[in-house]
């Protein structure tokens, strides 16, 4: 131990002996330009001055290179060696300003400021934190590998399901087509009943309010439709397993509330038996989500309206079809039911879950953080909300927008946009910063600017393969 200390001491003496060889503030890499006793040429080549004008506290070079160790040049920079920590450059205006900037105190050589050399302490702390981070990164990275694996499997499953649904649909369509001709002949007396249905249909302003399942029940009259219902059920199970949280298209009208909540709420439990699907993890989340998505009835009515608007185009189409083709109704019903299946599966598959789908596991999950005033809730790829802790309605802080990190790490930032509008301001938006962590958790939220929220979020999916820690810490020791 004492030997090591001695060695270090010797080393540092050695280092400072080397530093004498170059003017103050010059990094080793530029030492060759500052040769004692020889005229100095400004590093931009603009002029040559006698060597005694280097660091003589007067700025001779346009580029500030003659005063690396004084504050004389407005554009100069000073190199702190910071033995024990990281070397760095500071603007030369911070030389002798009475504020300790370099941890080795070398920037304050003539200001009377009493600086402590904190490099070793900083170095130690940095190494510790690097180590800690590396450990987290390591574990996080392992988790990430797992996530990638699961995501890929899940994706295949879903693709397969999508294929199934497509197959069933075609099959059913054929059957329905066959039945149609039969029924057409037989149906004449049923016209009145159909008109009744038509009225019922028109009477409901909301397309969504006629859920596929209720329609199924009403029309469960022919044997052929039994299979339809089964298939609808299958479809719905897919939907509910995926929790269909994705807002339909992310068009602005729809952003206020997600479509899916209401749909899943409206399926009567007895009608949709808890599915036989194999994915346990997802099931758990279903329960939680269904439970938590329950909203006060008043709010729900409002939201319904929003949803209706969002879903209007297919409704119009539906209506049109209803009017145009007498028997198209049922076909369309099929299409509608399958449409939901398709859209959600396709939607989920189409999300950018990262280069290896490592973020897929966040889909359909929600994470909460409670502060002194609010409960914040982040549902990745869906939306961010804020709810007062002590009662009050939920505010949408933005719906899924895009990955918005810098070019080299696009997946480090999520952007949620077009939340509830602000008074005389823009609509709310949230930036979610992702950092590597073993846990998937929201660590902080803030509102740096009115209606622009910032959320810190840790998860393993963002973890990068850690660099080899041993080597880097060794290097620091050397310095």
């Amino acid at each position, binding site marked *: 131990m004492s030997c090591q200390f001695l060695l270090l001491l010797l080393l540092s003496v050695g280092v400072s002996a080397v530093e004498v060889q170059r003017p103050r503030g010059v990094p080793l890499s530029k030492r060759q330009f500052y040769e004692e006793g020889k005229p100095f040429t400004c590093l931009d080549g603009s002029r040559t001055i006698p060597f005694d004008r280097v660091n*003589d*506290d*007067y700025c001779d070079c346009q580029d500030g290179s003659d005063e690396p160790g004084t*504050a*004389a040049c*407005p554009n100069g920079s000073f190199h702190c060696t910071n033995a024990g920590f990281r070397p760095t450059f500071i*603007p030369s*205006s*911070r030389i002798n*300003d*009475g*504020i300790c900037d370099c941890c080795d105190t070398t920037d304050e050589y003539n200001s009377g400021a009493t600086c402590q050399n904190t490099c070793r302490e900083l170095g130690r702390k940095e190494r510790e934190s690097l180590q800690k981070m590396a450990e987290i990164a390591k574990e996080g990275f392992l988790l990430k590998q797992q996530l990638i694996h699961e995501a890929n499997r899940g994706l295949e499953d879903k693709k397969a399901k999508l294929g199934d649904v497509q197959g069933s649909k075609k099959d059913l369509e054929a059957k329905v087509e066959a039945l149609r001709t039969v029924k057409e002949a037989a149906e004449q007396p049923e016209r009145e009943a159909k008109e009744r249905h038509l009225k019922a249909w028109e009477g409901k302003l909301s397309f969504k309010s006629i859920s596929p399942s209720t329609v199924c029940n009403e029309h469960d009259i022919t044997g052929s439709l039994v299979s339809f219902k089964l298939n609808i059920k299958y479809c719905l199970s897919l939907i509910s397993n995926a929790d269909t949280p994705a807002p339909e298209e992310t068009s602005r009208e729809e952003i206020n509330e997600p479509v899916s909540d209401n749909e899943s709420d409206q399926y009567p439990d007895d009608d949709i038996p808890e599915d036989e699907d194999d994915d346990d993890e997802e099931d758990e989340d279903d329960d939680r989500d269904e439970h938590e998505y329950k909203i006060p009835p008043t709010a729900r009515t409002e939201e319904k309206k929003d949803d209706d608007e969002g879903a209007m185009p297919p409704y119009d189409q539906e209506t049109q079809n209803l009017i145009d083709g007498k028997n198209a109704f049922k076909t369309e019903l099929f299409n509608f039911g399958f449409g939901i299946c398709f859209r959600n599966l396709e939607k989920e598959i189409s999300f950018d879950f990262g280069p290896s789908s490592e973020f897929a596991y966040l889909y359909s999950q929600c994470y909460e953080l409670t502060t*002194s005033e609010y409960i914040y809730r982040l549902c990745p790829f869906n939306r961010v909300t804020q709810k007062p802790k002590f009662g009050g309605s939920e505010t949408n802080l933005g719906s899924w927008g895009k990955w918005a990190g810098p070019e080299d790490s696009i997946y480090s930032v999520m952007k949620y946009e077009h939340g509830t509008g*602000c*008074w*005389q*301001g*823009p609509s709310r938006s949230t930036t979610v910063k992702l950092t590597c962590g073993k846990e998937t958790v929201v660590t902080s939220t*803030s*509102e*740096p*600017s*009115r*209606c*622009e929220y910032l959320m810190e979020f840790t998860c393993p999916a963002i973890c990068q393969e850690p660099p080899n820690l041993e080597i880097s810490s060794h290097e620091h020791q050397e310095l």
Partner: protein
Amino acid sequence: MAPLLVLGLALCLSGTWAVDKGNFKTCEQSAFCKRQRALKPGESPYRALLETMELTNTRLTLQLINDNNKVRLLLELYRLQGNITRVKINELKPLKPRYEVPDVLIREPTTEPLSVLSQDENGVVLSLGVESQRVIISARPFRLDIMEGSDVLMSLNSRGLLAFEHLRMRKDTFSYKVTSTVASVWDNIKRVFSSQADPEAEKKEEADPANQAETTKEEEEKVEDGMWEETFKSHTDSKPNGPSAVSLDFSLPGVEHVYGIPEHADTLRLKTTDNGDPYRLYNLDVFQYELYNPMALYGSVPVMVAHSAQRTTGIFWLNAAETWVDISSNTAGKTVFGKMLDYVQGSSETPQTDVRWISESGIIDIFIMLGPTPKDVFSQYASLTGTQSFPPLASLGYHQCRWNYNDQEDVKSVDAGFDEHDIPYDFIWLDIEHTDGKRYFTWDPHKFATPKEMLQGLMDKKRKMVAIVDPHIKVDGNYKIHNEIRSRGFYVKNKDGGDYEGWCWPGSASYPDFTRADMRAWWASMFAYDQYEGTMENLYTWNDMNEPSVFNGPEVTMHKDATHGAWEHRDIHNLYGLYVQMATAEGLIQRSGGVERPFVLTRAFFAGSQRLGAVWTGDNAAEWGHLKISIPMCLSMGLVGISFCGADIGGFFKSPSTELLVRWYQAGAYQPFYRAHAHVDTPRREPWLFGPENTALIREAVRQRYTLLPYWYQLFYRAHVTGEPVMRPLWVEYPQDLATFALEDEYLIGRDLLVHPVVEEGARGVTAYLPGKDEVWFDVHTFQKHNGAQNLYIPVTMSSIPVFQRGGSIIPRKLRVRRSSTCMEHDPYTLYVALNLQRTADGELYIDDGHTFNYEKKEFIYRKLTFANKVLSSVNLAPDAKFTTDSWIERIIVLGASKPSKVTLKTADGQEKQLEFDFDASMSVLTVRKPGMNAGADWTMTFQ
């Protein structure tokens, strides 16, 4: 905050971005203004009773009588030191005392002897001592003319608009009340019509006053609407004292340009008001104020400056009540001059400006400042109300403000942002959200849990903070400040004698009676470090909302029938904000044991506020028009003593375009108070949030400010000593150049820097007027020389800030810009010597510790720098002063120089040394390298 704002102010705004004019009175809606304005020029009913004249050595008194109602007034006339005439008119025997404004004059003005030159039954001629100046008092009708030689400088009551509503007993209380109520209802109905712009109704209204004017001539004065009660919107003003307005007209022969009477968002040169409302002086919290109109804003200085090529004069109307100022220009010479004066004015073509002041209560107390130069007027006014406080040097640096920096972490990261982007700043500001529930003198326990830690963090970087302390106090039994004020009976009282309560940021709030000296002393004591917990010496104060703003009050302010001891709020209104700042500044002085200079920013102000700190132009908007108007608004304030003025950089409401923000940073760098501020609902706009290119532009603007801090500082020292404005209109320095009289898109800083900021969107160039046919001007960036007396087109890019240094001046700069002004304290100076056509130049250099009152103990360096006969020298201007500095002269740049063969420096110890220099022949710029002498030393430098 937004909901409060909506509740308080913006209910009827419905999303439009403009002032809701309906919230504020027009003259027509202000009963006394309407009454007074109905009075048209004509023969005055007032007569001077010459037999009552008494003249002591320095004081003349004389009774005036209103021949209509026989009420007598007492006129007092004083000759004051420094060419000022004071005229006071009060009731001879008022029913009860009328309010006379205290605490504005720095002392009882020194009087000078008066003597009667001649007297007959028509009038009296008094000698004013100097320059054959005389006052002529005419008896019937009463008027007063001030003359110099054969020129009339100013006439009072020449249009017969003197009106003095004497205090009276209310007659037949019951029946009157009925009629007045009926009348006010009728008035409301009429108002509804007129607000719908019904031309018929308006005509009717115009006709009415004329009738009334007729009737007032009757012996027994008729009771008019609004005399004993007045209702505006839902607010009723009870007016227990009845009518009490005062009014007087002034004629200014030969004058076509009048300035001053801030605060208005209007042109520098005041406009005539014949076709609209008069300029209004009534401190109001105007939400989203509109440009180019005479509406009242946050502050009032009842001082008007009149200027012609021959002379500059000023009128100081010392009255703190609601005041309206009418201006008309009468070049046709319609004004009726007295017979005595007819021979004087040969031509009736003389241009003339007529002014009329109307105040709701108090007395007529006027100070006529006779100049004759602009600087004479400044020093005359300063001799009455004091000079600009000498601010701490750091407060001239850049201020970063926002409503709000959310918490300590936020403060820390913004502070770090400045370092990261290498932009200097001195102060970071905290708006109302930093408090514990808008309880001033407290900190939010969660967001600002450890304020000292935060302040220490700033102090470690030699930076400072300002926290807001508003005068509305949350009514809350658990709030120490409230309990203390209430138990001491320090609150303003409502008309029924209870503590006045209004609605402001904290919800229900009461307002300390700052007119009371004991209240102010108590308030000041609250700034002690052991009272105001969590504070340290680098925390300073900002007084906002001190008009006072009362969200649910009439015109968003206090009820006029609220009481301050014996006086009504009506009497003192415009003074309230000054008192708030006075008590606060005193608190900051006291907490340091009288050592440190305070820094207090105020929104409301009055005559004398210049002694107390800085003023900003309130809640402006992120619009080009607001950037543009910041120049005339601050120039107007400077003319009436308030030099430390600035506008919110970027605009408070709304979000500026990047171009606007950059331009505002550039313009603001050359205005006295340099603070960026933003509304809570606007996106963040710290200087580095607009891409590296714009960060660089803003950095450069702020750095230019910092290099010039020595110049700013010494100009503030000069302003503190002399009262002359720091930022001044061109005509102040070129009083005979008519081309400068209405300029408001450019101005001078001191005498030597001309600034023409770019304030137009997408500007490709600006045209600057460079004054002075014998002057030359040097572009401070390129050193290019331009001749004076020309309109110069300057092409501009986004980095351009057109600034010129006058040939003949020497300006000290510190080119080593650091992260705060305090970090630059010991840095060396570069002297910019700009030669004029005579190849001479001079300037000054002032240095002190930058923050204490020790300069009052002569601890400073004050030097005269002169360049003449190829010799540059530094001579001590204050030999009895003592101060030492580490700063030295690192460089001398001579603009318009010729190439010397050698440059020799001779220092006080007799040593000579030859200096190295560079000469740029293409620009005629000589740079002397590192002369190295101490900035406080005597030296001469010879250019052979």
